[in-house]
């Protein structure tokens, strides 16, 4: 266990830890910083990884409210994007580290408070992400047939709280409000050939529902124009090439754009060029033939801002949306959509609002900015709360891909390491770490799920998946997960 590096305390710390609890206390108490991370998604794991790598004595415990780890890597990344989930391998290596422990099925703020964590650990890092979504704030938003993209994604990815969503997929036309990668994900899952979905880790239940879906056409609707789309080129390319589908792009939206983007940075330029090409150029032979035989369609609608979801005759079901037609003021990323006064109604029975995730406050004692939806912080140090840090979406807002969160988490870990070095975090106060949390949880009847417990659940999911030709069949009931590890 790294004995070649000759750190005495670490060297005899490891074998002693395997002996009695008392010896364990002896070896770990006051030897190094005790740090805990709240949340086991990419932010939590990357923060832990960086801390463990750059501090030879630090112990990092990762808490997670669900029994299973990995957050949005498991529940957010689309089923047909398995490569993105490869980060699970590096997270697993981190969890296997001698100085790292994972405790699932522990809800911070309920099973143990942040204050109690602060008594047990030198530093507490909040990395619990964004579990909610922004709301449209328009009439009819709660009609049947209207869902947040977040809940829809949670549904097909097996997030326990969304397993009973039962989205109504009986409408031919679906509108996704928003033009980010999540919007493209839901459109793609709605329109993908079943043969493709069948071989992914999409849940059995949602696959069955999608198999009966009547959805043939998905519009991605944005308030602004083509130059403001938030999705990225790889995902757009994937959509354009989706078998069995054809794109519906209005040439009027793209004429002349080629000139406008001449001096724009390369990423935006290439993304726009791809849209322009697909909208204006004659397709090649192969593409033309695919589009001709396509049974499903997807398209982009611009400069439309939702005003009201319109009810059907029964007053309960959504039948369409009334949209304000907008024009742009300003240009580029900061362009603003301004209503023109014109209004348009679009018919559809399925509306998915994909306008952003949103963090929630964990505990009334932790500073939280409800307007920005983040914990106020400076370089990951929570303002006005020494010993408290944050990383990931709850720190910077719910945008960005895994690399964004990775860099951000390394940044926060760097702040913790600096504070350890300069004495801002006082190591002379010895902390018990999980030893004190363990007794708190026990007294409250909470049984943490360890990483090797997760590996049992993981093995069960993989085994079930194998029977169905899938990488895994996700267990969606937390009780079933707990029963598997007999808690």
């Amino acid at each position, binding site marked *: 266990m*790294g004995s070649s590096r000759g750190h005495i305390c670490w060297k005899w710390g490891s074998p002693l830890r395997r002996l009695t609890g008392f010896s364990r206390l002896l070896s770990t108490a006051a030897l190094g910083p005790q740090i805990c991370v709240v949340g086991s998604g990419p932010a939590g794991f990357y923060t832990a990884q960086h801390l463990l790598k*750059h501090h030879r004595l630090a112990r990092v415990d990762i808490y997670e409210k669900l029994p299973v780890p990995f957050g949005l890597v498991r529940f957010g990344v689309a089923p047909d994007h398995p*490569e993105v989930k*490869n980060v699970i*391998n590096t997270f697993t290596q981190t969890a296997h580290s001698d100085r790292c422990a994972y405790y699932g099925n522990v809800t911070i703020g309920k099973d143990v408070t942040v204050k109690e964590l602060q008594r047990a650990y030198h530093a507490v890092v909040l990395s619990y992400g964004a579990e909610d979504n922004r709301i449209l704030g328009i009439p009819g938003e709660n009609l049947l047939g209207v869902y947040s993209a977040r809940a829809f994604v949670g549904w097909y990815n097996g997030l326990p709280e969304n397993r009973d969503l039962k989205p109504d997929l009986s409408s031919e036309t679906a509108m996704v409000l928003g033009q980010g990668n999540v919007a493209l994900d839901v459109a793609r899952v709605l329109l993908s050939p079943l043969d493709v979905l069948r071989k992914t880790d999409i849940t059995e239940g949602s696959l069955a529902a999608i198999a009966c879906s009547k959805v043939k056409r998905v519009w991605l609707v944005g308030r602004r124009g083509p130059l403001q789309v938030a999705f*990225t080129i790889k995902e757009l390319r994937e959509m354009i090439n989706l078998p069995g589908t054809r794109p519906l792009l209005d040439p009027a939206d793209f004429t002349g754009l080629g000139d406008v983007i001449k001096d724009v940075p390369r990423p935006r330029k290439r993304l726009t060029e791809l849209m322009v090409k697909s909208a204006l150029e004659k397709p090649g032979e192969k593409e033309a033939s695919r589009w001709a035989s396509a049974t499903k369609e997807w398209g982009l609608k611009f400069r439309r801002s939702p005003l009201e979801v319109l009810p059907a005759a029964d007053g309960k079901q959504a039948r369409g949306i009334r949209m304000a037609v907008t024009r742009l003021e300003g240009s580029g990323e900061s362009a603003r959509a301004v209503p023109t006064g014109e209004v348009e109604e679009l018919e559809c029975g399925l509306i998915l609002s994909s306008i952003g995730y949103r963090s929630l406050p964990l505990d009334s004692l932790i500073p939280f900015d409800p307007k920005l939806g983040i914990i106020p912080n400076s*370089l990951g140090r929570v303002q006005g709360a020494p010993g408290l840090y944050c990383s990931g979406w709850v720190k*910077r807002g719910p945008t960005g891909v*895994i*690399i964004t969160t990775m860099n951000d988490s390394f940044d926060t870990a760097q702040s913790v390491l600096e504070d350890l070095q300069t004495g801002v975090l006082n190591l002379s106060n010895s902390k018990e770490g999980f030893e004190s949390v363990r007794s708190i949880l026990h007294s409250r009847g909470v049984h943490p799920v360890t990483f090797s417990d997760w590996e049992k659940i993981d093995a069960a999911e993989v085994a079930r998946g194998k029977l169905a030709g899938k990488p895994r069949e996700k267990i969606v009931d937390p009780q079933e997960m707990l029963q598997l590890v007999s808690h």
Partner: protein
Amino acid sequence: MMARCAPRLIRPLLNGLNLGKVQSFQCLRIAEHSQAPASLQPERSFGSTHRLHDVPRDTGSADRVTVHFINRDGERLTATAKEGESLLEVVVNQNLGIDGFGACEGTLACSTCHLIFEEDVFQKLDAITDEELDMLDLAYGLTDTSRLGCQVCVKKAMDGVTVQVPVEVADMRRELEVGKQSK
């Protein structure tokens, strides 16, 4: 999307993993590469279990190419690579201490293996594909001589080359971090 070089994708073997064996293998690695600075951490070891099968027998110096990586903190990490290995594989196999390198394990699903090349070396690299450009477009600190390490294979002509690990924008803008949100 696989790395275009011949060597296989890196996949740690999680089932039936004998951790004891892995750990001692890592120590062996540290002893072998004494030129590597003491700050190299063997824990950064995803995929190294797979490398148990790929420990290079003594192939002699004929097939080895020296590559220098300038890390984000300016530290120079030197590795000897086999011709045909991707630069991502070099970093992983040699356990170079570059934080967060190669998150998606060479499948063109991230940009964390982003490297900056010298102009003349850059010009001689194999042509870049749309798929690589798509991911490179999302990389921090993108330059005109940037490539993804998982797509660049080591060639004999690259012996002695120096590549730069980009400083992340987040590092440079530490002053501007507070409460910034785009929407």
